[in-house]
């Protein structure tokens, strides 16, 4: 087990900049998730750590040793791939022991390690089977087993759950977390699914356009996003963004969303936002902070009436969609409180959770 450090890592494909000046410090035992949309450079970053891609600039070190020029086999890492990459002609046990055999481990040691990993992953009865005789979830377990037996310094996961169905994905997510809690190996995990990132990570690295947008704990990213991208990417359904103007209101501040609708900015935020008075801004509020007026605890809300556009019952809650000055806004309400589409409903916005974004820089104020 070891710490991993990326210092100003750059990857270029001809003239295309895939990864730009990425710096991350991952301490020993930490579970870090790289998350972002397709093409954001997260997989490329992971593959550079693995040694499957050469780096154009910067430095990668594992356990204090710079590994820029080391081939993958000498980096002491193990990787789990999206499509499992199990050797189809080998049994599960042979798949798991292949790396150890190549490294000339004694037979008894190999057997002990394979048995132990199989026990951790609950695949002991599958050891004699071939990959094609396994289900998707079992294959994923074997791929993890192949990583565990090596007892490497770092685990690398490249979207390992993307090929599984929704139910199995949730199960395997828990499984991966359980395994990490048992073996405590430093882990770098790549996914495009922000729910996966939030549930698994000690820290999340949000990437966009080859750059790091923000690094932080899941709660940090959720409550204190630094950019519009992070605010919109983390959380499902996504945060509402409504064009707004900040106005002075006596000693306080008012955020105006339309000619009829404005909210009083909480006193705790006035000092932070005062410099932006008169500016055109984006007002950001998550759907879970727009609720019905009674029944649910939602901070010191400010109430406002809306005409519901679309109502989507989800069982445990109901999503209500309405428009403010042509911008679609989503709220989450108790199913019993929801009204039908076309009806007027009184909603409450929890302004303690609001964000103001400067559209010119896309930075959260």
């Amino acid at each position, binding site marked *: 087990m070891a710490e991993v450090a990326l210092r100003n890592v750059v990857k270029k494909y001809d003239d295309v900049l895939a990864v730009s000046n990425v710096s991350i410090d991952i301490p020993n035992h930490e579970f870090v998730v790289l998350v972002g949309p397709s093409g954001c450079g997260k997989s490329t970053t992971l593959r550079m750590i693995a*040694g*499957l891609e050469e780096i154009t600039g910067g430095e990668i070190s594992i356990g204090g040793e710079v590994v820029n020029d080391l081939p*993958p086999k000498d980096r002491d890492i*193990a990787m789990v791939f*999206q*499509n499992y990459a199990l*050797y189809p*002609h080998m049994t599960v046990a042979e798949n798991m022991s292949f*790396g150890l055999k190549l490294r000339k481990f004694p037979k008894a040691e190999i057997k002990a390690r394979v048995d132990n990993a199989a026990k951790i992953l609950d695949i002991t009865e599958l050891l004699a089977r071939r990959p094609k005789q396994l289900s998707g979830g079992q294959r994923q377990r074997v791929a993890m087993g*192949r990583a565990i037996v090596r007892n490497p310094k770092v685990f690398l996961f490249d979207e390992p759950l993307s090929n599984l169905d929704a139910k199995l994905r949730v199960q395997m997510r828990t499984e991966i977390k359980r395994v990490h809690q048992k073996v405590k190996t430093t882990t770098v995990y790549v996914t495009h699914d922000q729910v996966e990132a939030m549930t698994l990570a000690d820290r999340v690295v949000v990437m966009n356009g080859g750059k790091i947008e923000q690094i932080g704990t899941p709660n940090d990213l959720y409550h204190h996003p630094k950019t519009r991208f992070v605010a919109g990417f983390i959380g499902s359904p996504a945060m509402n963004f409504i064009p707004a103007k900040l106005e002075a209101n006596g000693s306080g501040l008012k955020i105006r969303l339309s000619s009829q609708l404005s909210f009083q900015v909480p006193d705790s935020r006035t000092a932070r936002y005062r410099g932006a008075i008169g500016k055109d801004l984006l007002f950001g509020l998550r759907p879970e902070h727009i609720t019905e007026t009674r029944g649910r605890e939602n901070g010191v809300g400010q109430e406002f009436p809306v005409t519901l556009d679309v109502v989507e019952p989800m069982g445990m809650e109901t999503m209500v969609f309405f428009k403010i000055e042509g911008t679609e806004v989503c709220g989450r309400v108790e199913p019993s409180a929801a009204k039908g589409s076309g009806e007027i409903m009184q909603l409450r916005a929890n302004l303690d959770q609001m964000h103001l974004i400067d559209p010119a820089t896309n930075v959260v104020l």
Partner: protein
Amino acid sequence: MSTAILTAPSAKRISAASSLKRNRRWALIMSYFFLICFAIFFLLPPYYMVVTSLKSDAEMARLATNPWFIFDGATLDQFRILLGQTDFLIFFKNTIIVTVCVVAITMVISVLAAFSLGRMKFWGSGMLATGIFLTYLVPDTLLFIPMFQIVKSIGLLNSYWGMVLVYPTLTVPFCTWIMIGYFQSIPKELDEAALIDGAGHMQMLFKIFIPVALPGIIAAMIFAFTVSWAAFVYPMAFLYSSDQQVLTVGTVTSLIRGDVYKWGMLMAGALLAAAPPLVIYAFLMDYYIAGLTAGATKG
């Protein structure tokens, strides 16, 4: 009310299903008809060979009888004379030696070439792969004259070892091409996993790629075997003494003297010569099909 609503669509469904069934039946009937036509068309020559090889010379000389049937009783005389009194067994042995060597040489060269061209992306690998295939498009009927000079200059004229040298020019390009396609259809994560597991390129080839690509390799082997077993132009041009001759040319040249055709032995020889490819195809047909269609079904 509800019954009425339910009945109408279900009646429609039944008629749609029965029309599907009818279509399928017609498709099957037509398939069987054409398959039987093709089978008869392609099985007639082998049938004629079997019938002729089991006839006596006397019956064949009597032109009055129907050549498609045996009237005087079947005999194995043609086979006995062919195996006992001609050089057929020498031709057979020479062909086996040449074929085994050619298949081995072809597989070594084409597996290594295909692995490097298909998986180890390097500058010009795509052009090189196309170039290799283009050499296959030059027919041996055009190549045998320059090839004659080469074989002669290295002293292998009238030696079946010369065939071991020249046949791979026919087999290697196509086999390499098949193998490139097969190797490329193997997901790239497999070699990345092997790299991370600690395998070098040769270990990756022998422990991962060759076992995974076995259907493709067997398809390529069958192709190399068939080409070298059935080659005619090169032995015709380069071999002229019967102790060096191979089956294709040897059988014909030794059993046709002037305008005398020893039909019985010719047919017996052709049957025996066709037997090894037939046996190999029968046992490895599944691999052959899997190998040739790999690109079509693998994602």
